[in-house]
């Protein structure tokens, strides 16, 4: 990293080089006080350094990443490593040397939230730090439903609604404040009769509807539903022959999209579209 290209005081640049910080990413991994200790600079200088570096990062756009908040199981790290290793096979449109240079693992921040308070703390305190430094531009919550469905019984539906609305508002705030998309994963619930589908445009034949009801639906800008097609219905003969499961991604609602769907398969190297 050529520190001289950034608009920094020469004394600051010298201090960074002396502290052997080689890249913007390394600088941003430390908190303010830690940087002060490492570089022996004043706090004002460190603030200026952090601001300049974040700006450079945002303009650069290469080193941004994602924050992945798990609420259910442990994060499937092995699968992530597999995807990273095979990324060049999936993205044949990108030159191989470009892909090999990117250190994907360093840009994915994984948080575990075992209960609602931990989730709120993550969303209100930890995510904004990463977002403000430009280190992440995507927030993924996997899954919203898990925590809310188990911690609240029927008699607490008002409290549950309040928490959902507060969470929705907070995510909206982060998304519009930092211009970053937020992707939430939800579960589905079986619908036995039409009452469960009140207010949705899903068929009774669909048999499943999104969990968390209309309170959560009101917080969303758009909703996508993924499902598996039975093998017999798949039109992709190749897939049917090899036994790959064809899945469907459909737009349930979005302000700028018609209700459409597409098909895809999941293989070792990742998600690929299918006819």
């Amino acid at each position, binding site marked *: 990293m050529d520190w001289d290209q950034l608009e920094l005081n020469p004394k600051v640049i010298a201090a960074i080089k002396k502290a052997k910080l080689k890249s913007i990413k390394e600088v941003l991994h430390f908190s303010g006080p830690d940087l002060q200790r490492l570089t022996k600079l004043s706090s004002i200088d460190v603030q200026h350094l952090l601001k300049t570096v974040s700006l450079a990062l945002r303009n650069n756009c290469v080193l941004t990443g994602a924050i992945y908040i798990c609420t259910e199981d442990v994060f499937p790290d092995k699968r992530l490593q597999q995807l990273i290793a095979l990324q060049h096979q999936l993205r044949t449109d990108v030159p191989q040397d470009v892909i090999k240079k990117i250190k994907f693992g360093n840009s994915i921040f994984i948080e575990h939230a075992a209960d609602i308070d931990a989730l709120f703390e993550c969303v209100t305190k930890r995510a904004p730090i990463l977002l403000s430094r430009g280190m992440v531009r995507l927030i993924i919550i996997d899954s919203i439903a898990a925590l809310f469905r188990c911690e609240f019984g029927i008699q607490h539906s008002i409290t549950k609604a309040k928490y959902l609305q507060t969470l929705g508002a907070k995510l909206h705030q982060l998304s*519009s404040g930092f211009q970053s998309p937020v992707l939430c994963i939800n579960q589905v619930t079986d619908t036995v009769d039409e*009452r469960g589908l009140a*207010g949705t*445009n899903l068929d009774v034949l669909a048999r499943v509807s999104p969990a968390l009801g209309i*309170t959560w*639906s009101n917080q969303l800008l758009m909703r996508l539903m993924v499902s598996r097609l039975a093998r017999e219905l798949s039109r992709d003969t190749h897939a049917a022959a090899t036994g790959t499961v064809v899945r469907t991604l459909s737009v349930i609602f979005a302000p*700028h999209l*018609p209700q459409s769907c597409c098909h895809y398969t999941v293989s070792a190297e990742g998600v690929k579209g299918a006819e």
Partner: protein
Amino acid sequence: MGTSRFPPSIWGGDRKRSAEPLSQLLLRLMSLRGRGLWFRRPERIPDAWAGSGSPTSPSPRAVELLFAAMQRHLGSYPLSPGVRVKLVSAGFQTAEELLELKPSELSREVGISKEEALETLQIIKRECPVDLSRFASVSISGKKYTALELLEQEHTQGFIITFCSALDNIMGGGIPLTKTTEICGAPGVGKTQLCMQLAVDVQIPECFGGVAGEAIFLDTEGSFMVDRVADLATACVQHLHLIAGSHLEEEHQKALENFSLESILSHIYYFRCHNYTELLAQVHLLPDFLLEHSKVQLIIVDGIAFPFRHDFDDLSLRTRLLNGLAQQLISMANNHKLAVIWTNQMTTKIDKNQSMLVPALGESWGHAATIRLILHWDQKQSRLATLHKSPSQKEATVLFDITAQGFRDVVVPSPLSPPVEPSGNPRKRSRDGREEE
């Protein structure tokens, strides 16, 4: 607001106030507005004041000065303390209230001698920058109308068409001006689509049945998609070109010269409000905006429920703020002759062990809008619009569709009986082109 004093600091005293939370400050400001004092238009104004306006339509600055004079608190006049105390305890607070009375009436009302009453009135008139005795007998509070005048006004008042003729029919022509309309529905049913469509439709030139106005869009949820609005605008322009092609009059072609994608998008004034404070502040500032942009005929608030449904532990505060907001919007609709539309969410209500979907924000909020439209699905996944509440039309439900071109009628696959007979609305002739779709 009970007997709370009019804060003279607003009009230029220097009473120090301790810091108060923003919500309380907004409540106070809104109570001033909500009393309708700001929006009253005087009947006659002396010519010297007219400035750039005419006697019947005064210039904004003249209006401001007049109001400031009339609303000035009695405490700021050099009256004797004894008289002042008696005036206040009799309930008089502003200059306007005093000037309506003759000295003998004033002395009887307040309990002061006739000389004191006369002197008081003289002091007030002397301090006024204009001779208010000219219309001291005419109450500044509200123009007087007869019902006949109102009927004539209603017949000529415009409607904003939605391009779904079935919906326009049940609403008596479309979204009416000077009234507030609420659109409720579950997520994804088409509320934002309808709002975006109306923001385009309000700009349709008059010879095509539109009101040739501009639109203000207040977005609280971030659901305004410019690309989609561009699609709707392009489709609208193409549609009007088709109609113009079939008409021989030149005025249609001429009107379309200024009706293009760029002009449509540049006349939608977009504001993003991230929480209820920003929304209240933005609505509070709208009257000034409307004075500068007098062609605005439509105000849309997309997502009036969203910012008010979290962050509120004190529900009575929420009700007060919502009522104040509704009052301001209603005043603007009336005074500037524009249509106000807001969208509301649906929520579940448990009633006798049965759950049903009802509009959010509570029962009392149902009174805020004059007209209420509820969008929903039926069992066959078609979209329906129900006119739930209207002062002049009966309750009805129609089918509608959302296509790539926007909000439209449902296309009937086979030719059936002729379309619904038009009512006596003279704007109907422009709809013929649409039936071809």
